[in-house]
Protein backbone atom coordinates (compact mmCIF):
# COMPACT_ATOMS: atom_id res chain seq x y z
CA UNK A 1 0.00 0.00 0.00
CA UNK A 2 2.85 2.32 0.93
CA UNK A 3 4.58 1.65 -2.37
CA UNK A 4 1.44 2.47 -4.37
CA UNK A 5 1.06 5.69 -2.37
CA UNK A 6 4.69 6.61 -3.02
CA UNK A 7 4.31 6.02 -6.74
CA UNK A 8 1.11 8.12 -6.80
CA UNK A 9 2.82 10.98 -4.96
CA UNK A 10 5.88 10.91 -7.23
CA UNK A 11 3.53 10.73 -10.23
CA UNK A 12 1.55 13.76 -9.06
CA UNK A 13 4.68 15.78 -8.29
CA UNK A 14 6.16 14.75 -11.65
CA UNK A 15 2.94 15.79 -13.39
CA UNK A 16 3.01 19.17 -11.63
CA UNK A 17 6.60 19.83 -12.79
CA UNK A 18 5.81 18.56 -16.30
CA UNK A 19 2.74 20.86 -16.48
CA UNK A 20 4.81 23.88 -15.42
CA UNK A 21 7.45 23.03 -18.06
CA UNK A 22 4.61 22.55 -20.58
CA UNK A 23 3.29 26.00 -19.71
CA UNK A 24 6.74 27.47 -20.45
CA UNK A 25 6.87 25.70 -23.85
CA UNK A 26 3.37 26.95 -24.76
CA UNK A 27 4.24 30.52 -23.75
CA UNK A 28 7.55 30.50 -25.66
CA UNK A 29 5.94 28.97 -28.77
CA UNK A 30 3.46 31.86 -29.00
CA UNK A 31 5.82 34.77 -28.23
CA UNK A 32 5.23 37.72 -28.62
CA UNK A 33 1.46 36.97 -28.52
CA UNK A 34 -0.38 35.87 -25.39
CA UNK A 35 -0.47 32.05 -25.36
CA UNK A 36 -3.78 30.13 -25.22
CA UNK A 37 -4.38 27.71 -22.31
CA UNK A 38 -1.32 29.03 -20.43
CA UNK A 39 -3.33 29.77 -17.25
CA UNK A 40 -5.14 26.43 -17.45
CA UNK A 41 -1.91 24.43 -17.73
CA UNK A 42 -0.29 26.47 -14.95
CA UNK A 43 -3.34 25.99 -12.70
CA UNK A 44 -3.27 22.24 -13.31
CA UNK A 45 0.38 22.27 -12.23
CA UNK A 46 -0.51 24.04 -8.96
CA UNK A 47 -3.44 21.69 -8.31
CA UNK A 48 -1.29 18.59 -8.93
CA UNK A 49 1.34 19.91 -6.50
CA UNK A 50 -1.30 20.72 -3.87
CA UNK A 51 -2.94 17.27 -4.19
CA UNK A 52 0.50 15.62 -3.97
CA UNK A 53 1.22 17.58 -0.77
CA UNK A 54 -2.10 16.48 0.76
CA UNK A 55 -1.56 12.90 -0.39
CA UNK A 56 1.95 12.72 1.07
CA UNK A 57 0.80 14.19 4.39
CA UNK A 58 -1.61 11.25 4.71
CA UNK A 59 1.33 8.86 4.56
CA UNK A 60 2.68 8.42 8.03
CA UNK A 61 5.37 5.91 7.01
CA UNK A 62 7.89 8.14 5.26
CA UNK A 63 11.48 9.13 6.09
CA UNK A 64 10.35 12.68 6.90
CA UNK A 65 13.72 13.62 8.38
CA UNK A 66 15.44 12.73 5.12
CA UNK A 67 12.65 14.44 3.16
CA UNK A 68 13.12 17.77 4.94
CA UNK A 69 16.94 17.54 4.91
CA UNK A 70 16.94 17.03 1.12
CA UNK A 71 14.16 19.59 0.64
CA UNK A 72 16.24 22.25 2.44
CA UNK A 73 19.37 21.64 0.37
CA UNK A 74 17.60 21.43 -2.99
CA UNK A 75 15.43 24.46 -2.14
CA UNK A 76 18.55 26.57 -1.59
CA UNK A 77 19.92 25.50 -4.99
CA UNK A 78 16.50 26.02 -6.62
CA UNK A 79 16.27 29.52 -5.12
CA UNK A 80 19.66 30.43 -6.64
CA UNK A 81 18.52 29.08 -10.03
CA UNK A 82 15.20 30.91 -9.71
CA UNK A 83 17.13 34.13 -9.02
CA UNK A 84 18.99 33.76 -12.32
CA UNK A 85 15.74 32.83 -14.09
CA UNK A 86 13.92 35.90 -12.78
CA UNK A 87 16.92 38.09 -13.63
CA UNK A 88 16.83 37.12 -17.33
CA UNK A 89 13.02 37.40 -17.40
CA UNK A 90 13.17 40.93 -15.98
CA UNK A 91 15.86 41.87 -18.51
CA UNK A 92 13.82 40.44 -21.43
CA UNK A 93 11.12 42.18 -23.47
CA UNK A 94 8.32 40.52 -21.49
CA UNK A 95 5.80 42.92 -19.94
CA UNK A 96 2.37 42.86 -18.27
CA UNK A 97 0.59 39.48 -17.96
CA UNK A 98 3.42 37.66 -19.80
CA UNK A 99 5.96 38.91 -17.26
CA UNK A 100 3.71 37.92 -14.35
CA UNK A 101 3.10 34.49 -15.94
CA UNK A 102 6.82 33.85 -16.48
CA UNK A 103 7.73 34.81 -12.89
CA UNK A 104 4.84 32.66 -11.58
CA UNK A 105 6.15 29.60 -13.46
CA UNK A 106 9.65 30.11 -12.01
CA UNK A 107 8.27 30.47 -8.46
CA UNK A 108 6.07 27.39 -8.92
CA UNK A 109 9.01 25.31 -10.17
CA UNK A 110 11.09 26.52 -7.21
CA UNK A 111 8.53 24.85 -4.92
CA UNK A 112 7.73 21.77 -7.03
CA UNK A 113 11.22 20.60 -8.05
CA UNK A 114 12.65 20.39 -4.49
CA UNK A 115 9.47 18.58 -3.35
CA UNK A 116 9.76 16.06 -6.22
CA UNK A 117 13.46 15.36 -5.60
CA UNK A 118 13.06 15.22 -1.79
CA UNK A 119 10.15 12.78 -2.00
CA UNK A 120 11.90 10.63 -4.62
CA UNK A 121 14.90 10.32 -2.25
CA UNK A 122 12.92 9.86 1.00
CA UNK A 123 10.82 7.00 -0.38
CA UNK A 124 13.96 4.84 -0.63
CA UNK A 125 14.88 5.43 3.03
CA UNK A 126 13.53 3.61 6.10
CA UNK A 127 10.51 5.44 7.58
CA UNK A 128 11.09 7.54 10.74
Amino acid at each position, binding site marked *: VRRAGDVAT*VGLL*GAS*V*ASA*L*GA*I*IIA*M*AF*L*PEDPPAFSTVLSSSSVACFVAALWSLRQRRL*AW*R*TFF*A*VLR*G*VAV*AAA*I*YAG*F*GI*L*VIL*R*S*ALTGPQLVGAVTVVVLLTVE*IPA*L*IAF*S*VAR*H*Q*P*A*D
Partner: protein
Amino acid sequence: MDATAQNASYPDTPFVPPGALAVAAAGLAVLLAALLSSNVWALNFVHVSAGALWTAIDLFMGFVIGPILARSEIPVRVAMAKRLMPQMLVIMPTVVLITVIAGWQLASQIGILTLPYPLRWWVVSSYVVVATMAMLAYTILEPANITVLIELRKARPHGALIDRMMRRFARAAGVIGLLQLAILVIMTRLRFP
Protein backbone atom coordinates in the same frame (compact mmCIF):
# COMPACT_ATOMS: atom_id res chain seq x y z
CA MET B 1 19.86 -1.62 12.33
CA ASP B 2 16.54 0.16 12.79
CA ALA B 3 15.45 3.22 10.85
CA THR B 4 16.23 5.70 13.64
CA ALA B 5 19.75 4.37 14.09
CA GLN B 6 20.36 4.44 10.34
CA ASN B 7 19.07 7.97 9.97
CA ALA B 8 21.00 9.06 13.06
CA SER B 9 24.23 7.95 11.44
CA TYR B 10 24.47 10.99 9.14
CA PRO B 11 27.79 12.69 9.83
CA ASP B 12 27.96 16.47 10.05
CA THR B 13 30.41 16.81 7.18
CA PRO B 14 29.05 18.66 4.13
CA PHE B 15 27.41 16.66 1.32
CA VAL B 16 29.63 18.19 -1.32
CA PRO B 17 33.32 19.16 -1.25
CA PRO B 18 33.82 22.91 -0.60
CA GLY B 19 36.21 23.03 -3.57
CA ALA B 20 33.41 21.95 -5.93
CA LEU B 21 31.15 24.63 -4.47
CA ALA B 22 33.87 27.24 -5.09
CA VAL B 23 34.18 26.15 -8.74
CA ALA B 24 30.38 26.29 -9.11
CA ALA B 25 30.31 29.78 -7.56
CA ALA B 26 33.03 30.89 -10.02
CA GLY B 27 30.96 29.49 -12.91
CA LEU B 28 27.87 31.35 -11.71
CA ALA B 29 29.92 34.55 -11.37
CA VAL B 30 31.01 34.22 -15.02
CA LEU B 31 27.35 33.66 -16.01
CA LEU B 32 26.25 36.73 -14.04
CA ALA B 33 28.97 38.86 -15.67
CA ALA B 34 27.90 37.68 -19.15
CA LEU B 35 24.23 38.39 -18.37
CA LEU B 36 24.89 41.87 -16.99
CA SER B 37 27.21 42.77 -19.87
CA SER B 38 24.56 41.75 -22.47
CA ASN B 39 27.55 41.09 -24.74
CA VAL B 40 26.49 38.65 -27.48
CA TRP B 41 29.97 37.13 -27.82
CA ALA B 42 30.28 36.60 -24.04
CA LEU B 43 26.82 35.02 -23.84
CA ASN B 44 27.56 32.82 -26.85
CA PHE B 45 30.92 31.74 -25.37
CA VAL B 46 29.39 30.89 -21.99
CA HIS B 47 26.41 29.10 -23.58
CA VAL B 48 28.48 27.01 -26.02
CA SER B 49 31.24 26.18 -23.48
CA ALA B 50 28.81 25.07 -20.78
CA GLY B 51 26.66 23.21 -23.32
CA ALA B 52 29.70 21.33 -24.69
CA LEU B 53 30.74 20.43 -21.12
CA TRP B 54 27.19 19.24 -20.33
CA THR B 55 27.03 17.03 -23.47
CA ALA B 56 30.52 15.60 -22.95
CA ILE B 57 29.95 14.77 -19.27
CA ASP B 58 26.60 13.08 -19.95
CA LEU B 59 27.93 11.00 -22.85
CA PHE B 60 31.07 10.10 -20.85
CA MET B 61 29.00 9.10 -17.81
CA GLY B 62 26.46 7.13 -19.84
CA PHE B 63 28.70 5.37 -22.32
CA VAL B 64 32.13 5.14 -20.64
CA ILE B 65 31.79 5.28 -16.84
CA GLY B 66 28.41 3.46 -16.76
CA PRO B 67 29.55 0.28 -18.56
CA ILE B 68 32.84 0.25 -16.59
CA LEU B 69 30.91 0.44 -13.30
CA ALA B 70 28.49 -2.27 -14.45
CA ARG B 71 31.44 -4.67 -14.93
CA SER B 72 33.20 -3.72 -11.66
CA GLU B 73 33.01 -5.36 -8.24
CA ILE B 74 30.64 -3.76 -5.72
CA PRO B 75 33.46 -2.38 -3.48
CA VAL B 76 34.94 -0.69 -6.57
CA ARG B 77 31.54 0.83 -7.44
CA VAL B 78 31.12 2.11 -3.87
CA ALA B 79 34.64 3.61 -3.87
CA MET B 80 33.94 5.26 -7.23
CA ALA B 81 30.56 6.57 -6.05
CA LYS B 82 32.14 8.07 -2.93
CA ARG B 83 34.42 10.29 -5.00
CA LEU B 84 32.31 10.86 -8.11
CA MET B 85 28.78 11.51 -6.86
CA PRO B 86 29.49 14.52 -4.58
CA GLN B 87 31.19 16.26 -7.51
CA MET B 88 28.34 15.40 -9.90
CA LEU B 89 25.76 16.80 -7.47
CA VAL B 90 27.33 20.26 -7.85
CA ILE B 91 28.78 20.17 -11.37
CA MET B 92 25.76 19.00 -13.38
CA PRO B 93 23.06 21.40 -12.11
CA THR B 94 25.52 24.31 -12.38
CA VAL B 95 26.52 23.46 -15.96
CA VAL B 96 22.85 23.00 -16.93
CA LEU B 97 21.86 26.32 -15.35
CA ILE B 98 24.68 28.20 -17.09
CA THR B 99 23.83 26.64 -20.48
CA VAL B 100 20.08 27.28 -20.29
CA ILE B 101 20.16 30.80 -18.80
CA ALA B 102 22.94 32.07 -21.10
CA GLY B 103 21.18 30.43 -24.06
CA TRP B 104 17.84 32.04 -23.24
CA GLN B 105 19.38 35.50 -22.86
CA LEU B 106 21.37 35.05 -26.08
CA ALA B 107 18.30 33.83 -28.01
CA SER B 108 16.30 36.74 -26.63
CA GLN B 109 18.93 39.29 -27.72
CA ILE B 110 19.48 37.97 -31.26
CA GLY B 111 15.79 37.42 -32.00
CA ILE B 112 15.72 33.59 -31.98
CA LEU B 113 12.74 33.52 -29.58
CA THR B 114 10.47 35.30 -32.06
CA LEU B 115 11.63 33.66 -35.30
CA PRO B 116 8.80 33.16 -37.82
CA TYR B 117 7.30 29.71 -38.36
CA PRO B 118 8.20 27.16 -39.82
CA LEU B 119 11.81 27.92 -38.77
CA ARG B 120 10.57 28.45 -35.22
CA TRP B 121 9.56 24.78 -34.98
CA TRP B 122 13.27 24.03 -34.50
CA VAL B 123 13.30 26.37 -31.49
CA VAL B 124 10.10 24.86 -30.07
CA SER B 125 11.50 21.35 -30.52
CA SER B 126 14.59 22.41 -28.56
CA TYR B 127 12.29 23.47 -25.68
CA VAL B 128 10.63 20.03 -25.76
CA VAL B 129 13.99 18.23 -25.72
CA VAL B 130 15.30 20.43 -22.85
CA ALA B 131 12.07 19.87 -20.87
CA THR B 132 12.44 16.09 -21.38
CA MET B 133 16.04 16.26 -20.13
CA ALA B 134 14.90 18.32 -17.14
CA MET B 135 12.23 15.75 -16.26
CA LEU B 136 14.83 12.94 -16.46
CA ALA B 137 17.14 14.96 -14.21
CA TYR B 138 14.45 15.76 -11.61
CA THR B 139 12.87 12.30 -11.50
CA ILE B 140 15.89 9.99 -11.93
CA LEU B 141 19.31 11.65 -12.06
CA GLU B 142 19.26 13.92 -8.99
CA PRO B 143 17.26 11.57 -6.70
CA ALA B 144 19.66 8.72 -7.58
CA ASN B 145 22.68 10.95 -6.94
CA ILE B 146 21.41 12.15 -3.55
CA THR B 147 20.26 8.66 -2.50
CA VAL B 148 23.77 7.30 -3.14
CA LEU B 149 25.31 10.14 -1.11
CA ILE B 150 22.91 9.50 1.80
CA GLU B 151 23.68 5.78 1.78
CA LEU B 152 27.44 6.39 1.69
CA ARG B 153 27.17 8.54 4.84
CA LYS B 154 25.60 5.72 6.84
CA ALA B 155 27.54 3.42 9.15
CA ARG B 156 26.19 0.45 7.13
CA PRO B 157 25.39 1.55 3.56
CA HIS B 158 22.75 -0.39 1.59
CA GLY B 159 25.04 -1.83 -1.12
CA ALA B 160 22.23 -3.09 -3.38
CA LEU B 161 20.45 0.29 -3.29
CA ILE B 162 23.71 2.12 -4.13
CA ASP B 163 24.31 -0.28 -7.00
CA ARG B 164 20.75 0.16 -8.34
CA MET B 165 20.94 3.94 -8.09
CA MET B 166 24.38 4.13 -9.73
CA ARG B 167 23.11 2.07 -12.68
CA ARG B 168 20.00 4.25 -12.88
CA PHE B 169 22.17 7.38 -12.78
CA ALA B 170 24.47 6.15 -15.56
CA ARG B 171 21.52 5.07 -17.78
CA ALA B 172 19.72 8.40 -17.30
CA ALA B 173 22.96 10.28 -18.03
CA GLY B 174 23.33 8.26 -21.23
CA VAL B 175 19.78 9.06 -22.38
CA ILE B 176 20.32 12.74 -21.57
CA GLY B 177 23.57 12.57 -23.55
CA LEU B 178 21.66 11.23 -26.58
CA LEU B 179 19.07 14.00 -26.18
CA GLN B 180 21.98 16.44 -26.13
CA LEU B 181 22.95 15.17 -29.57
CA ALA B 182 19.40 16.01 -30.69
CA ILE B 183 19.94 19.54 -29.32
CA LEU B 184 23.18 19.79 -31.33
CA VAL B 185 21.26 18.83 -34.49
CA ILE B 186 18.61 21.48 -33.73
CA MET B 187 21.16 24.22 -32.96
CA THR B 188 23.19 23.56 -36.10
CA ARG B 189 19.99 23.47 -38.21
CA LEU B 190 19.02 26.85 -36.72
CA ARG B 191 22.42 28.31 -37.63
CA PHE B 192 22.36 26.96 -41.20
CA PRO B 193 18.72 26.18 -42.10
